[in-house]
């Protein structure tokens, strides 16, 4: 069999890439190892719930625009979720879009922090706007304003923890804001906060949105479009080997032994998994291979979905907000060192979303879903995830019960989506967040491109890398082949 391009992985990045290639008139084969498409946004068909990410925060507006997704059925149930921070006193602080309202809310706890918050937001969003081309375009120009450049230079060296410490005095506020930075004690992770602020959902800068039907709705629309456009999709099929001739790609060998020939492969896997596991040995070059072997991530995040038969009354977590449960900023250090030692941390850092508004039908039928994202979990725990997930579930439910009495009695199903390290290269990498898309997408192998979240500046569901990778693949395919 011969196609123009093979896309490995049917996540948002892979789906977007194959759609763009198909629009350019190329024949595309999409391989997905799992039975359902959608990657981080897939749904569990038997339970009829989304199991991966609960929210979307970085979907490329141009993908939505160019693929005309809004007219194909994508509607947003929530355009911007406020951040809810459970305060040690038992109250909950709600930080919405309006910085003045947010400052007023903070003022009830700390006047100094309320003052700082407005300026923090202004600085963060200002730099984010200046850096937006950097994170949005394939070939950005230099960053113009001098103030932004100086600030960028400072943040490149600053950890999110140090940056937040410089602004705020209240530990609970700092810990919650640090959740977005992924690894808040890593130098340069302050830029992760800026990256978050540079994203746009529903035309709102730095917003966190949920489509109607959950993130899985986005995946379903893309799958329907891909099928209609004539992308050949094979689920339950994984690629085991890339076939190379010198440094030029010949095709992909499938699990079944079948060989598919193509000049171009787009992989949604991480750079490490693609170049070390799929490509033949040494195709990445000695230095790159060494670097990739060393940089394996030691922590990851898990998505846990709880199905309840009723939402308990005294629910401490406001609906349609994302509640970040992280008590102290310093706990991130313990979390990180436990992850390095391959152990479950003492304190779980988690984000809880109760999307009541997006699925009224489900709520009407007496079913409620709570989706929990736990960060800073060990990537390769000592006892293995099979044994650890029961303990993790117990810990998550116990932590939630501090806020919501009687939760345990209502749980009907607990679903786990554990850290998948094949999709990620490192926890946080300065060189990755500061490089442009081209070096993140291109590989040493001619015709092999990355299109998944590993090609993004930060791990996220975006589709931006898929769109740009499709453009690069299209340029590669239109070059003449030497006879």
């Amino acid at each position, binding site marked *: 069999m011969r196609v123009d391009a093979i896309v490995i992985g049917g996540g948002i990045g892979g789906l977007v890439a194959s759609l763009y290639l198909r629009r350019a008139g190329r024949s595309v084969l999409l391989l997905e190892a799992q039975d359902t498409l959608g990657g981080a946004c897939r749904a569990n068909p038997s339970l009829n719930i989304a199991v991966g990410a609960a929210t979307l925060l970085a979907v490329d507006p141009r993908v939505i625009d160019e693929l005309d997704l809004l007219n194909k059925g994508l509607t947003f149930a929530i355009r911007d979720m406020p951040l809810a921070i459970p305060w040690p006193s038992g109250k909950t602080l709600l930080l919405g879009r309006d910085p003045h309202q947010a400052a007023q809310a903070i003022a009830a706890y700390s006047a100094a922090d309320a003052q700082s918050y407005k300026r923090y937001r202004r600085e963060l969003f200002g730099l984010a706007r200046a850096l937006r081309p950097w994170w949005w375009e394939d070939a950005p120009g230099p960053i113009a304003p*001098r103030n932004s450049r*100086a600030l960028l*230079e*400072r943040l490149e*060296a*600053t*950890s999110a923890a*140090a940056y937040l*410490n*410089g602004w705020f005095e209240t530990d609970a506020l700092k810990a919650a804001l640090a959740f977005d930075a992924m690894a808040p*004690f*890593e*130098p*340069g992770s302050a830029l992760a906060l800026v990256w978050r602020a540079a994203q746009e959902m529903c035309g709102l800068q730095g917003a966190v949105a949920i489509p109607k039907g959950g993130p899985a709705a986005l995946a379903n629309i893309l799958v329907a479009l891909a099928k209609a456009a004539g992308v050949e999709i094979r689920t339950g099929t994984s690629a085991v080997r890339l076939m190379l001739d010198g440094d030029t790609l010949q095709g992909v060998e499938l699990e079944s032994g079948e060989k598919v020939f193509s000049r171009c492969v787009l992989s949604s896997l991480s750079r490490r998994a693609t170049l070390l596991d799929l490509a033949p040995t040494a195709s990445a070059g000695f230095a790159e291979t060494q670097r990739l072997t*060393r940089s394996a991530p030691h922590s990851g995040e898990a998505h846990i979905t709880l199905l309840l038969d009723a939402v308990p009354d005294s629910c401490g977590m406001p609906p349609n907000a994302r509640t970040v449960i992280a008590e102290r900023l*310093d706990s991130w*250090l*313990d979390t990180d*060192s436990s992850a*390095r030692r391959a152990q479950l941390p003492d304190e779980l850092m988690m984000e809880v979303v109760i999307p009541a508004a997006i699925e009224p039908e489900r709520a009407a039928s007496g079913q409620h879903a709570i989706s929990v994202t736990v960060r800073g979990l060990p990537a390769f725990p000592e006892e293995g995830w099979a044994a650890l997930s029961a303990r993790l579930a117990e810990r998550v439910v116990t932590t939630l019960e501090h806020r919501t009495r009687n939760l345990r009695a209502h749980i009907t199903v607990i679903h786990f989506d554990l850290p998948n390290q094949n999709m990620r290269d490192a926890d946080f990498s*300065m*060189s990755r967040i500061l490089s442009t898309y081209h070096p993140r997408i291109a590989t040493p192998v001619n015709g092999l491109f990355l299109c998944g979240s590993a090609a993004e500046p930060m791990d996220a569901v975006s589709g931006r890398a898929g769109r740009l990778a499709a453009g690069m693949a299209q340029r590669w395919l239109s070059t003449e082949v030497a006879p």
Partner: protein
Amino acid sequence: MRYDAAIIGAGTNGLAAAATLARAGLSVAVFERAERVGGRCAMREFHPGFRASPFCDEIAPIPAAIFRALDLARHGAIFMPPADLAGDRLRAAIQKRIAAHCAYALENAKQPQKHDWLGRSVGLTPWHRDSWSARSLSDVLEEALPDEKSRACALAATLDGRTADPDRGGSALHLLAPRTGSGMTMGGLETVANALQASAQVAGATFSLGLEVTDVRLAKHRATGIRGADGTEVEARAVISTLDLKRTFLALFAWKELPEAVARRTSAFRHAPASARLLLALDAPPDMPEGPVSVPSCSAAQAYAAWRTGTMPDPLPMALRWVSATDPRLAPSGKAVLTVTLGAVPYQLFDGAWANEKRMALRERALAQIEAALPGLSKRVLAAELIMPPDIEDALGVTQGDLDGGEIAPDQMFAQRSFAQCDAGRTPINGLYLGGRSAPAGPLGSCVAGVVAAHAVMSDLAGGRLR
């Protein structure tokens, strides 16, 4: 009389700044709180007949250019070759990087400062990025040193007397902020201070010892002189403070006088005090090699975790050094002086300050651990003196007893140290310069920050900015 420069603190940096300025023909006054010059180079008789320098055995290397320019060898500073701990390749890489940073800092300080119409400095080459800023210490060591043992050795030597998580990105910067490596000096560390002082005095610098500076006088947002604890007021066109950032702005200024940006930066600046010292007087030479000896201890990551939570790691990370073997004048003949540098000692324990019984307990634990490593040693101990971070703070006036002048982290190194917008030790307050370990060039070596600040003063005086 109005001096060209007033220098606060007569440690190696202050003395080097004074010598550089005085040799250039400027009038310089140095103010020191203690009765003697030297700062951390000072020595003390801690038991009759036994002498040691309480804070460190070695200082960071003085760059050769500075050593020559100040003519220190002629004034009596004689260093012995340092003990080789790291592998040759790693050592060469470290020296190359430090030399490049020092050369940049000195060159940049000599450039006249230009300003645009808003008063922002322009036209300076930015401090080049060091790739180690993003790398972890264990990563760099793993790459440079093949065998496990030399890696452990180099890690212990780098974190000697301080603490860091070696797996965290940016911890490799500790290699570029050496605390030792100069080699021991003939006659103890105070000869270095004496040589620096002689170099400055010959050139005409005046010294006021035993006089604590309490205020920097400000007029129209620029420093115009200093006020001493006894009420003396001295006018100067430039003030170089070799105190650390926190001390400089908290002790020498009224908080309300400070521009908001300075106050914020000062309060956000982090310190990581972790070193304690144990001085031992022995009645017979110990049975050990001359160079530093590391006692088996817990891993650096564990030590850091314990330190952060205000507890003592177990076993303690420590390095022993038989200093009187290298320099026999430190002890009476037939006897010996042993110094022990403890790492990961928090400034305060989680349950409160270092009260006397806690110190006693720590001393017993350290001695027991030494006895286990070198059996029979504890019977020879005549006297043992423990110096904790609060003692170092009292003696040297460094915040929390942090001898690095601020935590070594990517956002507190090179151009980002103290004030990102100002270079060469300049501060947002016109006429005030930082010349200590908190200055951008401070961690790179001894005397570097002082000389850099001195050059900045000279170029600003020549450029007419300090009239």
